[in-house]
């Protein structure tokens, strides 16, 4: 269960940032949406809110927190499990509590604060969702937030990184029915993370061509995946010549999203916002180039025989 950042601003009197460093990665999150804004039910802004930061090291975000809980790396899932037990007054194994690097008394204090809140929110970042446990950690946090609703209103929201990555989820959801990693090879969508997710596909060497747009995997992905991108025909669309462009057979320069390309982008709480470009680019937009590639493909004989009027035997 989640909510919009407007609800957070107006209602949230308790927030946990888990595995994220908004002070450096989302600099205006505190001041524009969550911590210091004055809202309808939080008229005194920061004074009406309590903030807890859970992370493996003391980042600059810790300065903004009322409570900082330094957890041992890779113990997020264990801590989520312990918290889920504690809110239901179940007994917990002390050896397992010790493994998280936090004393039981601190966790009991945290649970008391969570239950005392009128509206609690857990913002979870890549430190939670991309480390040991991965999507199970995200699932755990969502369960924790759901179960907290037996006591008070509680929600969870992922801290999305790149500009319109939320939009990619939304668009793929309403076009294919799935949010990411969608395989259309059979002519209908199939979804299976781990099988059809990019890193797994590339590391296994499953793809024999790749179109990269609005990303630079050549700078961020594991080396075996990058090696495979260099082996196969890769096509890159980007406002700059990137690491990926250098290993691509084809690069097309495009206008920068929101700066010289108009359109829509989704905020991390799935609110669509219009872009207002300030410059006129000498390059075409991504939208235009992808449409032209699609039209060029459509002019050629289709890969599925049935679409050319032939029977599939």
């Amino acid at each position, binding site marked *: 269960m989640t909510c919009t950042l407007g609800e957070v601003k107006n209602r949230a009197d308790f927030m946990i940032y888990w595995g994220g460093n908004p002070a450096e990665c989302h600099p205006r999150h505190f001041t524009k949406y969550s911590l210091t804004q004055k809202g309808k039910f939080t008229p005194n802004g920061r004074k009406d809110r309590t903030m807890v930061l859970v992370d493996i090291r003391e980042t600059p975000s810790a300065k903004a927190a009322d409570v900082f809980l330094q957890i041992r790396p890779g113990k997020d899932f264990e801590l989520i499990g312990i918290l889920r037990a504690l809110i239901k007054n179940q007994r917990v194994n002390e050896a397992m509590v010790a493994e998280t690097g936090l004393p039981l008394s601190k966790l009991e204090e945290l649970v008391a604060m969570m239950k005392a809140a009128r509206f609690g929110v857990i913002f979870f970042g890549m430190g939670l969702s991309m480390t040991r446990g991965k999507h199970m950690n995200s699932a755990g946090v969502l369960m924790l937030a759901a179960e907290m609703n037996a006591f008070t209103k509680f929600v969870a929201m992922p801290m*999305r990184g790149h500009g*319109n990555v939320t939009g990619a989820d939304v668009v793929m959801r309403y076009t294919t029915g799935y949010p990411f990693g969608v395989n259309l090879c059979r002519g209908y969508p199939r979804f299976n993370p781990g099988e059809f997710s990019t890193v797994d596909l590339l590391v296994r060497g499953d793809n024999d061509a790749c*179109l990269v747009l609005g990303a630079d995997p050549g700078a961020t992905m594991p080396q075996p995946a990058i090696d495979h991108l260099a082996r196969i025909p890769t096509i890159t669309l980007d406002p700059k010549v990137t690491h990926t462009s250098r290993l691509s057979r084809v690069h097309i320069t495009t206008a920068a999203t929101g700066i010289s390309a108009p359109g829509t982008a989704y905020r991390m709480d799935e609110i669509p916002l219009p872009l207002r470009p300030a410059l006129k680019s000498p390059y075409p937009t991504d939208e235009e180039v992808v449409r032209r590639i699609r039209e060029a493909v459509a002019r050629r004989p289709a*890969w599925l025989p049935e679409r050319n009027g032939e029977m599939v035997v």
Partner: protein
Amino acid sequence: MTLTIVKNATCTFCGCVCDDIELHADEIRIVETKRACSLGESWFKNHTAEHLYPDALIDGHPATVDDAVEAAADYLLNANMPLVYGMSNITCEAQREAVALAELIGGVVDSHTSL
């Protein structure tokens, strides 16, 4: 020189997508980014309207967009399992086109979410 002022511009650098930025721009570059954070400011100021890069590259050599589009279409259609990846820093309109293209070429479409 007169500056164009764009009020309530939207920053797409991070997931916050702040839509209250005031941009002051001349023909070539953005010179002022009111209310933007340090990340947003460098995002806006690092992209100009200059023609700094070739329109397109094929095998590392400058080419026209038309040729590059045709080459891209050939590679994608001839592949058995093409992948359309990324989509984090493009508009929703471009993302829709990308999904339509992925369907046409019978490929996989994926975003940063799967990382």
